[in-house]
C-alpha cells in the first residue's frame, strides 16, 4: 500500500496527520505488516501528556509488543476506542480507521522534525 502524501512520518513507522492544532497518529501499513495480526491495543489516557518520542501506546500482535511513540509532544485529546474491540482495524486500515490517538500539539516546531512521504519512502528502501 502507498504511503499517503498528505501525512508526516517517523522513523519508527508512525504517521501523523495535522488537523489545526491537533495531530492524529497511527502506525504505517509497513508497520502493521511487520507486526502481523494485531490482537490488543493499549491506549493512552485522555489528557495524559507525552513528550515527543515518549511511548504513548502499545500494540500487541500475536507474537510481540510494539510501542507507539508520540511523534510530537502534547496532551492526548482523543483515543480510538474502536480499537478496544476491533484491534485488527490496524491491520485492515492502518492509515484510516486504524488511527490510534490524537494529541493537542504543544510545540508546532516539533512538526519540522517529522519525515515527508519521500523521506519515509527512502528510509524504507535503505533501511535504518
Amino acid at each position, binding site marked *: 500500500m502507498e504511503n499517503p502524501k498528505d501525512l508526516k512520518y517517523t522513523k519508527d513507522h508512525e504517521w501523523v496527520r495535522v488537523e489545526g492544532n491537533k495531530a492524529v497518529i497511527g502506525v504505517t501499513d509497513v508497520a502493521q505488516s511487520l507486526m502481523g495480526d494485531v490482537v490488543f491495543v493499549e491506549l493512552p489516557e485522555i489528557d495524559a501528556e507525552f513528550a515527543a518520542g515518549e511511548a504513548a501506546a502499545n500494540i500487541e500482535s500475536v*507474537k510481540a509488543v510494539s510501542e507507539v511513540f508520540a511523534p510530537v509532544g502534547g496532551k492526548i485529546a482523543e483515543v480510538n476506542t474502536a480499537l478496544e474491540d476491533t484491534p485488527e482495524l490496524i491491520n485492515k486500515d492502518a492509515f484510516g480507521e486504524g488511527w490510534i490517538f490524537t494529541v493537542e500539539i504543544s510545540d508546532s516546531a516539533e512538526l519540522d522534525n517529522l519525515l515527508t512521504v519521500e523521506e519515509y519512502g527512502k528510509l524504507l528502501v535503505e533501511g535504518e
Partner: protein
Amino acid sequence: MTSLKRTPLYETHVKAGAKIVEFGGWEMPIQYTGIIEEHNNCRNYAGIFDVSHMGEIDVKGPDALKFVNKLVTNDVEKMALKQCLYSPMCYEDGGVVDDLLVYKMADDHYYIVVNASNTDKDYDWFLQNAKGMDVKVDNISDQVVQIALQGPKAEGILQKITDCDLSKIKYYWFDYGKVNGIESIISRTGYTGEDGFEIYVKPEFGPGIWDKIMETGKDEGVTPIGLGARDTLRLEARLPLYGHEMSDSISPLEAGLGIFVKLNKEDFNGKTALVKQKEEGLKRKLAGFEMVERGIPRAEYPITKDGKEIGWVTSGSFAPSLNKNIGLALIKAEYVSIGSEIEVNIRNKGIKAKIVETPFYKRG
C-alpha cells in the same frame, strides 16, 4: 557467531511467501499468511509444518535400552516395537536437559527426536552418558527431514499418498511406509492438540513430499503453518516448550509432567533429586491462567498476588481458538487452585487473571 542453518525446505518456504526468522540457530518460517489464519486452518482443516530443524539421535547396541532408560524419566522398558514415548531427560539435580520423543525401532535400536536448539547439547550429553555402555550413538539430524501434517483432515490427505494403512497407527505409534513413493517413518504424533502425523524422510525427498501434500490436500484446505501458529497451537493444548515450561532450573515435576516421570523405575539421571522433590512437596507448580482484564501475558512477566511476587509467566499469548488471552505460569504451589485470582505484571501494572483448568483447548 556461527552461520544460521536452513532446512531442505527453505526455498519452498521463501517461494510460498513465508516471513523468515532466526530460531534456535535456524532460519525458519514464522508465518506465511498470518498466525491467526494459520492457527484456525490447522484446527479446522489441516496444516503442514516443516520441523526439520528438530534433531534426531540414533542409538543402537546391546545396551541401548539400558542406556536410554538411564537418560530419560519415562519408562522405555515398557515400550513395544513401533511405539513412541514422550519423556523429559534430566540432569542429576532434576533440572531438564531436554524433552524428547523416543521411537522404538528394535529391541536394540531407538530413534530419538530432540529440540532443534538443544541438539548439540543433547548429543554431548548422550555421549557422556554412553561411557562404559555398549551402544553406538549418532547425531543423524542432517540426514532427516521432518514434516508434520496436523488437523482433522490430516489423515484423509496423507492416506491418499501413502501405502501405509494410517487407520492402524494409533496415537503415539508409528509405522514404515511409502509417502509419495518414498520410504518414510510415519508416526501419529504432533504438537498442536490435533490429530495428525509426523513424517521422517531423507532430506532430498522433503520438498517433493511437501509439494505433494500441498497439492493433494488443496481441496481439503491444507496450508503451511509457521512457528508463530505452532506456538499458539501448542500453548492452547498445554504442550510444554523447553526453555519456558521446563529448563535446567525447572524440573518436570514442577512443570506438571509427573506422569512422564516414573519414579519407581530403576536408577535414572535425576531420580534421587526428583524423589526428594516429590517427598518434600513441590514449592512451585505450573498453572494455566486466563486474563480477566485486558492485556496479553508474555513469557517472563511477573505474577503477583496481593502485591507480592509469586512467580512468572512461562508462555503467554492471545489464543485464537478461544478468543482469550491465556498463559502458563510457574507459581508458588499454594496459589495454583482453580479459580484463584492472580495478577500479571504488564508494563508495571497488575492486570487481573485467574487460574483455569488446562488444557485450554481440547479437540471436539
